């Protein structure tokens, strides 16, 4: 991915002892994150054991009227939108050739890939008969006419594409130069395919709800759900890149060339411009759909108020915040705007999949504490894996920078 030539590595550790040395912990163990995440993950595992013995009903508040809850509504439907940054940024760097965003691409794609792997995992945990998850893939029962069939295929293929996008970093880690050159040559093709597949499944997740026409509140149901989902995945993904980038920058600062620290805010402000435009496009679509459907009379209810909160408070307001932050170069405000946008995307996805779903029924669905624990378990495990990789593979740093890939037997001579 990076165009920098690899530093000459005269004498490397043998592969086996290198891998063994890399398996050792590279960060202090007693950190606040570890102290919180380890008990949660252990509890989550216990909850999941129960789920596989007594069924989904033993740990969730799902019901016949609310067959999809937090496991689908947050982990999958929201999570995939938030992971949209990987395809947007890859498009910007490889298709539009805006090289200045290249330094943050790898971390974003790694985040995207891990998010997808873990959301796919969360999805499998939410399936009633997960041992049949292979059925739509191996071809003994292709449901071509199903939106979900299309979504799961483009989901799966996109994960492979992201692995190809990341593979040069892996080759650099192991010091495989030739493999790296070959894998890097696949980048443009992989990105183009990746953007296409992302467009399909981001929109496809929205299309899942097209047949729930009689169940979703009319303020949220529209035949344009797929387009709204696609456009919102752009600003959801970019906002996530802004926040994640900020966080990674603070936590793994040592990995990043100090010369690049200064330009980082510039990058984020550039992304903020794109986010503002995407948000405004989305707001405009929402307005158009509302006017076209003539839904004025629906506004005078608690659902109407809730809808206005989502559309004004979490779409228009962050849009203006982004525009202001970019114009007046205010990186702090930019981050707040990104946070507000993410809450808005979360609200929108949960409204469609859970809150305004079967809104007419008297009994509402609220997730059980076990559902929150499972969600946190998935999230925390993902962060563990992310940290493990970032401390080893050249994700944030360039391959020739400190710390070395495949350290030399004598580190002298490198500075």
């Amino acid at each position: 991915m990076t165009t920098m030539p690899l530093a000459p590595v005269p004498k490397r550790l043998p592969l086996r002892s290198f891998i063994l040395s890399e398996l050792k912990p590279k960060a202090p163990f007693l950190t606040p994150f570890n102290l919180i995440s380890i008990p949660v993950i252990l509890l989550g595992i216990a909850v999941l054991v129960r789920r596989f013995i007594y069924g989904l009903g033993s740990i969730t508040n799902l019901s016949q009227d609310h067959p999809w809850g937090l496991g689908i509504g947050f982990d999958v439907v929201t999570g995939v939108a938030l992971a949209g940054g990987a395809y947007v940024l890859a498009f910007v760097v490889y298709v539009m050739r805006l090289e200045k965003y290249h330094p943050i691409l790898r971390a974003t794609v790694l985040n995207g890939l891990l998010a997808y792997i873990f959301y796919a995992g969360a999805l499998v945990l939410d399936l009633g008969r997960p041992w049949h998850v292979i059925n739509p893939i191996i071809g003994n029962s292709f449901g071509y006419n199903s939106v979900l069939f299309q979504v799961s295929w483009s989901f799966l293929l996109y994960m492979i594409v992201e692995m190809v996008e990341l593979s040069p970093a892996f080759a650099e880690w192991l010091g495989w130069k030739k493999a790296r050159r070959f894998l890097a040559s696949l980048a443009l093709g992989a990105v183009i395919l990746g953007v296409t597949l992302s467009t399909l499944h981001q929109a496809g997740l929205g299309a899942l709800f097209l047949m729930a026409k009689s169940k979703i509140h009319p303020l949220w149901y529209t035949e344009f759900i797929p387009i709204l989902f696609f456009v919102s995945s752009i600003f959801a993904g970019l906002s996530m890149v802004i926040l994640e980038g900020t966080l990674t920058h603070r936590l793994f600062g040592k990995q990043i060339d100090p010369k690049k620290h200064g330009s980082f805010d510039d990058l984020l402000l550039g992304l903020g411009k794109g986010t503002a435009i995407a948000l405004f496009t989305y707001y405009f679509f929402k307005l158009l759909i509302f006017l076209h459907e003539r839904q004025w009379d629906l506004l005078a209810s608690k659902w109407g108020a809730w809808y206005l909160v989502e559309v004004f408070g979490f779409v228009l307001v962050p849009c203006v915040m982004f525009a202001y932050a970019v114009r007046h170069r205010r990186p702090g405000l930019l981050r707040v705007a990104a946070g507000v946008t993410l809450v808005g995307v979360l609200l929108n996805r949960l409204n469609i999949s859970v809150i305004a779903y079967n809104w007419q029924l008297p009994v509402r669905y609220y997730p059980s504490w076990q559902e929150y624990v499972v969600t946190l378990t998935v999230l925390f495990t993902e962060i563990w894996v992310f940290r493990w990789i970032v401390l080893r593979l050249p994700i944030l740093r360039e391959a020739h920078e400190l710390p070395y890939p495949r350290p030399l037997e004598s580190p002298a001579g490198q500075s």
Partner: protein
Amino acid sequence: MNRRTFLKIGTAAGSTLVAGSASAKENGNPEEFVGVLVDTTRCIGCRACERACSVEHDLPVPDIENDNALAAVRPTSETQWTVVNRFATSKGDVFVKKQCMHCWQPACGAACLTNAMEKTRTGPVIWHPNKCMGCRFCMVSCPFDIPKFEFHSWNPKIQKCSMCYERLQQGLEPACVGSCPTDALTFGNKRDLMEIARLRIYHHPDRYVHKIYGESEVGGTGWLYLSAVPFEEIGFRTDLGTTTYPEYTRNFLYGVPLVLFGLPALQYGLHLLSDKKDEALEAKES
């Protein structure tokens, strides 16, 4: 897709039969969709159909004499594929049997990514346990809220009325139809059932509202209902429209190949257009 394939096969089979013999034509196409006509004016709420259904499908058999189940309106459940409900209406109490409607183009079948929900060629919509992965998209999609999921099992099944598919294959009627003491249920193909229903309305214009529920709801269903009172009064949704449910996803699915093949070409074009080197070169030349 199933339906379309079915139509093709049906037409082909039909024309062969016409060419073959006249008597085959009189018997009708053996693969015509079947269904059941429910005449709610005849139902007395005895719930014999509930018991027959449970016995036929090895489900817990309700104690229909003593369990006072008619007190509240019940949905079907993972242990009861059909229920009879009582509704207080403008014309007194009305009893209504509820089960899968066996839509002509079922939403559940279009939702299922493994073809576990299948619209069979004879009409029943059935579930295949060896294909289903338990994603519950069929439940989200069904406009009648029929598929039910066993949330308290390690190996959960989707439970819903199968119109006694196995019995139909043996040439028998669905179990509930045979159990009905008042002939409120009539089994047959939809063409015949529609004629019977229209005839009843024609002969007793005051007894029935002049509507057959299921004639065109969500594109037509296998089960049809006659009623003395407007259908909203007896628990039916009359706002579902006449568009088939798979139709709602058609535009999106037709867009998939366009995006899959169009977007890469567009992106490659953009990639070529945004070549900074070319610009620099041109600037030098001019």
